[in-house]
């Protein structure tokens, strides 16, 4: 089994939003960062991967199995962290653990207490006295304490302070020392991914814009600035999106070398960050078609 998650021709629609004919493979043993603006469909897709939402059509396989036949087996091997806390506020952490721990066959109590110590989580305080960041730490401790093969995290760092966000990323690095583990992490904070992710999947309006290796993105994507006169029907094909101003144009390309060869020193070319790729890709093309 090469892929931890496989989606084939998945359709899902509600109201005006729809995901159409979406196919995606999340490689086993790697960290895949899931990026996209608000309403891009990241959470919907994650919920389908966890069987919280069912697709209208298409196939979803997780850890080589489908939910229809192996729902419990799959969920046994998934650790999850959602952006909103899923905790009973009137209980203390120790009570909460007593509810969750027996549900997993591979629950490791020693590991859970290690994480509680590390995150400085008080076992005897009620959850309602915890800050948002602490609740996220609790979710993370639960997700990591049953030796899950697949960690699915939906914007886990959104409510964390910068210090714990770093610790969190460090922790995920440690988790990934085990080569069997896979992490799928959706986030708005691109800096989280640059140090951690192996693959980046970019979603927009219910579609996958691209799903590529991070180093490939870093090598190939660039922001190009130059005079508007350089643009014509032929040269525009090298760009995914173009913004024209009075002083010139700014464009995003996914073919750094081709643009450099084409324009030479007539333009300024800078490597694009993930944030810039997201920004410039709004309404742009998924791929530049170069004839």
């Amino acid at each position, binding site marked *: 089994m090469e892929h931890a998650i496989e989606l084939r021709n998945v359709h899902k629609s509600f109201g005006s939003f729809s995901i159409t004919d979406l196919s995606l493979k999340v490689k086993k043993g790697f960290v895949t960062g899931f990026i996209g603006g608000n309403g891009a469909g990241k959470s919907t897709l994650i*919920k389908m991967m966890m069987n919280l939402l069912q697709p209208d059509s298409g196939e979803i396989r997780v850890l080589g199995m489908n939910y229809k036949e192996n729902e419990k087996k799959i969920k046994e091997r998934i650790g999850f962290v959602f952006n909103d806390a899923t*905790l009973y506020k009137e209980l203390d952490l120790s009570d909460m653990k007593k509810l969750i721990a027996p*549900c997993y066959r591979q629950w490791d109590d020693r590991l859970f207490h290690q994480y509680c110590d590390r995150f400085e989580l008080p076992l005897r305080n009620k959850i309602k006295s915890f800050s948002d960041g602490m609740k996220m730490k609790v979710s993370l401790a639960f997700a990591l304490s049953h030796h899950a093969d697949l960690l699915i995290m939906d914007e886990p760092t959104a409510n964390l302070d910068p210090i714990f966000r770093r610790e969190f990323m460090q922790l995920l690095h440690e988790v990934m020392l085990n080569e069997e583990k896979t992490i799928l992490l959706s986030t708005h904070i691109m800096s989280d991914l640059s140090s951690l992710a192996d693959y980046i999947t970019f979603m927009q309006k219910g579609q996958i814009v691209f799903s590529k290796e991070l180093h490939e993105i870093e090598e190939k994507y660039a922001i190009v600035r130059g005079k508007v006169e350089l643009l014509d029907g032929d040269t525009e094909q090298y760009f995914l999106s173009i913004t024209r101003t009075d002083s010139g144009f700014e464009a995003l390309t996914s073919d750094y070398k081709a643009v450099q060869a084409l324009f030479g020193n007539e333009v300024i070319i800078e490597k694009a960050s993930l944030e810039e790729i997201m920004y410039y890709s709004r309404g742009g093309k998924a791929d530049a078609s170069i004839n």
Partner: protein
Amino acid sequence: MLQLIKKDIAIHKFQWLLYLAMLLFFMLLDKDAIFIIALMSAIITMNAFFADEQANGHKLWNAMPFTRSEIVSARYSSLLVVTVISMSTVMMIEPILNGGWDVLIWKELVGGVVLIMLSGALCFPIFYWLSQRSVIFVLLILYILLVIAGAYSFYYLYLYLSDTLIIPQALSDGKLFGFGFVIALCLYMLSWRLSIKIYKNRGIL
């Protein structure tokens, strides 16, 4: 699934003391056992629904190794467990307060079970249909009011049936309550299946 039933019992924690105090209060007020059993079971179950809604419980338990059928079945089972706990507590306290059991208390116990099954059968599918929406909190209150109204309706219906000539001749109390129990059980089972169907088709937001 057993773990989910345990969860439904455990999430109340110290509130069990409050439930016991309420039960004692109603018993001291000399309320009918049918009223006390049905009301206490409904309050405890409503609180479990409420806690799950507040804690994003649908998301939590559906992301864990449980099927939707198990999640629904656990709630239907835990209502019965809670009813048995309420019945047992009433049975234990009754002799202390009144010096012994009324020979007719069995009617009230069966009546309580029938009432809680009928109200659960009616309301649970609606709760699963409207879960994760804010209107659910209003419906949970209505559920309690329905049980209270049901307890009184049950009482007056029994008086009416007893006063008519046909029913007492045709059916003994045993048969009447047995018949009521079987009907309530059948409706409860049907509702159980319906809730599973509704919940399986629901997206968890």
